[in-house]
């Protein structure tokens, strides 16, 4: 579930914002830089330690005293996790479910938001309120009835059981709605005068104009779906259908106390997201700042 706050204007407005305020003495700023570098390094230590461990042979991880030094660095743990094969299935499941959730969320939520923002129809307020209600109901409190319902539909242990309940997120509707609200009215009216259909105004005009919102919703929906544990844990039983978090959390027995293997698996599970982050760092960070989306 996500929560929505603050207006999206920041998002677009900030791009042109002046370079921000930095005053005070140079020395003081240098000091701040130093402190931050120290903290950043501290913050990176757990990740670096995981990487360090993953490159150790399993035997070396149990040696005392604890050391960063690797006597015989090896790709062995990564190779054995990849060779063992489960993780490829998990990648497939995670990619497929996350991608479909993103696509379906963007389509359904933007359509609904467009209607709520740009169309005028009977019961508009009521429907808005009805969807607003969804902001207050996180999927976590629904797991018990939802499991039985999805079971009744015969969807358990399929990707659809993971995908469908994660698509209707009210938050996405509201993000889109706010961006649609921000579009100038005149554009649409001009289009209508030229005889454009409502569909064209949505698809041909409005959607291209709210690309930043689509990007933000897509990226965040992808991250949440990729990282979601509780719901997929309930509905996916076959190890070959599990998503990355479910697989890592339940099949850890396979790794036992082979710490290097465990770290290699943990890192491999996060790799696509790390790559995504490195590519889209700016968009992700601006998405957070602009929309206040939070998992």
């Amino acid at each position, binding site marked *: 579930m996500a929560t929505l706050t603050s207006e999206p204007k920041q998002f677009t407005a900030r791009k042109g914002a002046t370079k921000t305020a930095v005053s005070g003495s140079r020395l003081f700023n240098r000091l701040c830089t130093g402190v931050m570098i120290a903290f950043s390094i501290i913050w990176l230590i757990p990740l670096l330690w995981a990487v360090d461990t993953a490159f150790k042979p399993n035997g070396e991880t149990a040696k005392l005293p604890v050391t960063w030094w690797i006597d015989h660095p090896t790709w062995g743990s990564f190779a054995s996790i990849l060779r063992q094969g489960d993780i490829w*299935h998990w990648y*497939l*499941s995670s990619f*497929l479910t996350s991608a*479909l959730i993103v*696509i*379906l969320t963007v389509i359904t939520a933007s359509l609904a938001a467009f209607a709520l923002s740009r169309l005028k129809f009977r019961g508009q307020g009521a429907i808005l309120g009805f969807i607003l209600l969804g902001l207050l109901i996180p999927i976590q409190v629904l797991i018990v009835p939802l*499991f*039985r319902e999805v*079971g*009744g*539909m*015969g*969807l*358990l*242990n*399929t*990707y*659809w059981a993971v995908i*469908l309940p994660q698509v209707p997120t009210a938050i996405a509707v509201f993000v889109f709605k706010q961006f649609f609200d921000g579009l100038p009215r005149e554009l649409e009216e001009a289009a209508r005068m030229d005889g454009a259909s409502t569909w064209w105004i949505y698809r041909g005009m409005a959607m291209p104009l709210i690309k930043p919102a689509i990007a933000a919703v897509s990226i965040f929906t992808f991250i949440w779906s990729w990282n979601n544990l509780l719901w997929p844990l*309930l*509905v996916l*039983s*076959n*190890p*070959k*259908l599990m998503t990355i978090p479910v697989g890592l959390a*339940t*099949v*850890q*027995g*396979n790794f*036992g106390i082979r710490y290097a293997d465990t770290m290699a698996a943990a890192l491999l599970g996060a790799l696509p997201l790390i790559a995504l982050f490195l590519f889209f760092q700016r968009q992700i960070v601006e998405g957070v700042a602009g929309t206040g989306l939070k998992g």
Partner: protein
Amino acid sequence: MTTDHPAPQSTGVSRRGFLGGALALGLGAGALSACSTPLGAGLAGSTLDPGTVQYWNLFGGGDGVRMQAMEAGFEKSHAGIGLSSVTLAWGNPYYTKLSLATLGGAPPDVAVSHLTRMKTLQAADLLAELQPADLARHGMTADKFNQTAWKTGLVDGKIYAIPLDTHPFVCFYNTDVCKKAGLLDSSGKLKPITGEQAFMDALTKAKKVTGQYGATIAAINETSTPWRIFQSLYSQLGGSPVVSAQGTKVTIDDAKALKILTFLSKLNTTQLMPGSLDYQGAIATFAAGRAGFFFQGEWEITTFQTAKTPFSMTKFPNVYGDAGHYAVQADSHTLVIPKDSGRTPAQLDSALTFIRSMLDQSATWAAGGHVPAWLPYRNTPAYAKLTPQSNYASAADAAVYDPIAWYSGSGSDFEIIVGGTIGAVMSGVSSPQSGLDQIKQKLGVLAKTQPPTR
């Protein structure tokens, strides 16, 4: 499309109908062509790898290593049948996942279950009944199993589980300490300890040698072990089942329970057996020779072999039973076949072949301490020569399993509630009387609850 199997409680929209619609909604039909791949299974609900045996277990540590060896043994001797095995985290998470998988219509073909947990799975209608004729085809007949484990596993005379072993609560003893304390006989084995006084004496002598403790046991942050020693002693005393009538009645014998709790608390106050150690602490203290005895399930054998502790093992002493009445807490690992309406006779045969293969490899399994349930191995000279494992083999015949209730079984709420309270008595946090009251009060709540199983 290969077979689709409806979920047990499927109502309304058919799986195929719904999935067809869902597919038509957004996806190309290309995915449909890939039938028994994960893609086909995930999108269209087709069965994954119908030809292989899907096997789930919960073994870590030494047991995990031996189980992997046995799986490799199966793959070698039955190259025609594929095997896909998964190890899941021990305890509640495992049984939860197994239940959900079966409810979701995608259970494994064979799964490990503790005998006591198997009862709950059976009551929830999640297990397939095994027909004697099918079993006989694979050479598995009732007379070839340890009778205590076999008979306890039956439900209304029907078979739902094949016992692989019995794992009783046993006595580990430090041979150096016990020798100095004069507790060993001429052949270097522990002289039988019978009766409360003899038990206290043995611990006192051991304590004098070690200068610290007579025995160690896990009592802190641990629920199963306190329950195991309590249940062993309480059963020796002839106490009625703690709960009965499928867990809807609390039938603990107050006087006998109080006697055992008082005894356990006395062992702590005299520091013959402290209640201040946790699981690892109890192991470490015994391994370091600072106690003569250690009480736990036999699976810790690997730990002390690795630690090169001078030790041996025997049955947990008969402290309260008359000469003819011995009892000790135990459970069994069993192999079950979860219910799956889509299972073909051929798949059932593969599953039974796998189960038989596990039994045939009982020698590998027994090395880890578990008493094999498979008599064709249990009665061989090879097993008799396997010491100290075979020293306590007869404990399997006197095994007392946890009482049957939907909230009971290894690692269950029952063990947590009762064991946790007993642990508090053992460590002196609760008095025996208040411990007993607490057990009765908490079990009373569960007993009154409408059972979720039938």
